[in-house]
């Protein structure tokens, strides 16, 4: 399957969709921590300067203020790098937003390895794990531009706290114009019998590439895209576990507590099968351009193909024994 890649980065769609939603939702506010031209909330600032609040380089305050505004009836979108929204302001996000279940939509930009040259202080391989463990908070990682837009429309229609990932990556066009987003729903992008590859965010593009490589070797790989990590599509995971007996996950995140963790939690309980996880191991995303990072940390179609092939062999050996 040959994918076209968008010439527009996900963060641009984030900024444009804020502007679009801001037209219909007069109580939508955007809060920034001195990063608006990077996150692209600058587009909203230009269109609705009165509803754009600059909080300065003060993330604990940013999320506290967002919570207060939500309690006052607004829907704030506080935005900063994923690293700062999660590692830096976790207490405010937990105590002031998640636990009282306030209507705050947290955009974590430059997620995973996509702060690239900024290095380990700005790259954030733990946001999914951290945010997934908080009460009430929904956790999302969009696969393409249309999905990000649909996701933002869906979160405006449903009050409550959400954490969603944004990046400067040019994503592949996975979905058509009619694509819709539902919390807790995943998508079977490609059927297959031997193994299921599960991706989230733009890493689903790598899973699709790996499926093509496996196909050349005669291994039939299904591909699932999981934009909603919490809640997660349990039915789809169980269905694929039954059908293929082996799953390989891939994420722009450490292999602790993210997509791989969420998938394993469901299947360990509902239908245990062979699982492998691709992501960052017990280390950090160093400073380097994106392509170098993907290759260095073995987050490529080739690497995923090799993991999947080994897993299929293990599954076959186990069933023969």
């Amino acid at each position, binding site marked *: 399957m040959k994918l076209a890649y968008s010439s527009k980065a996900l963060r641009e769609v984030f900024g444009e969709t804020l502007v679009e939603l801001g037209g219909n939702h007069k109580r939508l506010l955007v809060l920034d921590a001195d990063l608006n031209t*990077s996150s692209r909330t600058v587009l909203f600032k230009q269109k609705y300067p009165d509803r754009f609040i600059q909080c300065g*380089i003060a993330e604990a305050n940013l999320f506290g203020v967002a919570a207060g505004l939500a309690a006052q009836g607004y829907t704030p979108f506080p935005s900063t790098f994923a690293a700062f929204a999660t590692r830096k302001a976790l207490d405010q996000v937990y105590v002031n937003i998640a636990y009282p279940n306030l209507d705050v939509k947290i955009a974590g930009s430059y997620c995973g390895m996509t702060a690239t040259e*900024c*290095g380990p202080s700005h790259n954030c391989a733990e946001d999914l794990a951290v945010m997934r463990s908080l009460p009430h908070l929904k956790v999302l990682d969009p696969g393409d531009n249309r999905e990000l837009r649909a996701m933002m429309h869906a979160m405006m229609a449903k009050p409550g706290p959400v954490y969603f990932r944004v990046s400067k990556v040019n994503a592949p066009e996975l979905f058509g114009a009619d694509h819709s987003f539902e919390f807790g729903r995943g998508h079977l992008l490609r059927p297959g019998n031997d193994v299921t590859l599960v991706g989230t965010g733009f890493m689903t593009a790598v899973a699709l*590439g790996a499926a093509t490589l496996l196909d050349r070797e005669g291994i039939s790989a299904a591909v699932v895209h999981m934009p909603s990590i919490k809640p997660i599509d349990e039915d789809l995971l169980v269905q694929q576990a039954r059908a293929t007996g082996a799953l390989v996950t891939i994420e722009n995140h450490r292999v602790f507590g993210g997509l791989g963790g969420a998938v394993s939690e469901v299947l360990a309980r509902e239908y245990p099968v062979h699982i492998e996880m691709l992501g960052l191991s017990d280390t950090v995303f160093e*400073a380097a351009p994106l392509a170098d990072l993907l*290759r260095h940390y073995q987050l*490529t179609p080739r690497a995923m193909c090799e993991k999947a092939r080994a897993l299929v062999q293990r599954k076959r050996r186990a069933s023969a024994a």
Partner: protein
Amino acid sequence: MKHLSPDKERILAGKAFDIRRLCLEFITCAGWGHIGGSFSEAELLACLYGGVMNIEPRTVDDPSRDRFILSKAHASPALYAILALEGFISEDRLFTYCRLEGLDGHTQRGQCPGIEYSGGSLGTGLSYATGLALGLRLQENFASRVYCLIGDGECNEGQVWEAAMSAAHYRLDNLIALIDYNKVMAKGKVSDLLAIEPLAQKFASFGWSVIECDGHDLADAWRAFYQAKYLEMKGRPVAIIAHTVKGRGLPEAEFNYHWHTHAPSVAQAENFLIELNRTYERNGRFSRPLSSPKDAGLEDVVSADLNPA
């Protein structure tokens, strides 16, 4: 020494110039980097490593050395450059900036000699420096001082003021905070985004001695350091508020937040070198031919595997 001699001033001016020239070179080659905040701190680093601090390559692990913490760790290029100029690391190492196995975009503790602190999350350096200063005192090391360089926008962070409160409470007169007051943050002017004035009164009211200086005037900066080390009241930490210009030395970059995080093209870098030479009346040359990195993304990685050459 109390006053900066004309000879010494010439040497430090040369170092400040070379910091800028080297930053221009390796930021261009990396295709990424922070020029604005590196250029605003160049004279301060030239003073610190040119005689204010008790540290040199041979004493980089000596317990009695002075410690330097770059809390505004995005401005690491100027620090890497002065470490190369002073012989802590090689100049070649600078050209690994933002490459795998190379120097990080923000400082990483222990990554190369002279880097004491992992930074990049703003507002955390002064607490770390407070811990170092407290530790030195507990160990009865009265020879070493801790210098912590903070950005002005960074003073938005509440943690800076938690640290300021602590350092005064513990009477850490072995701690000197330097504020690179270049008036511009990542996306605009400090006074527009989140005002920090009156900054001197803030530190003073937290129990610090406060000294102000022109951070680009080497003699004035030197005077401020001398005063901080020897003349201030015992039992108080000292804040030096250095008034600086973001991007100082390049007319296009001065006070221009566009150059907070931005790398020049090779052609731009060549023009910038001409401007630097004009500003500082020098005849500096690049140490090597420059090249910009190729821009590769997700699509390139996926298609390389699917369609191997």
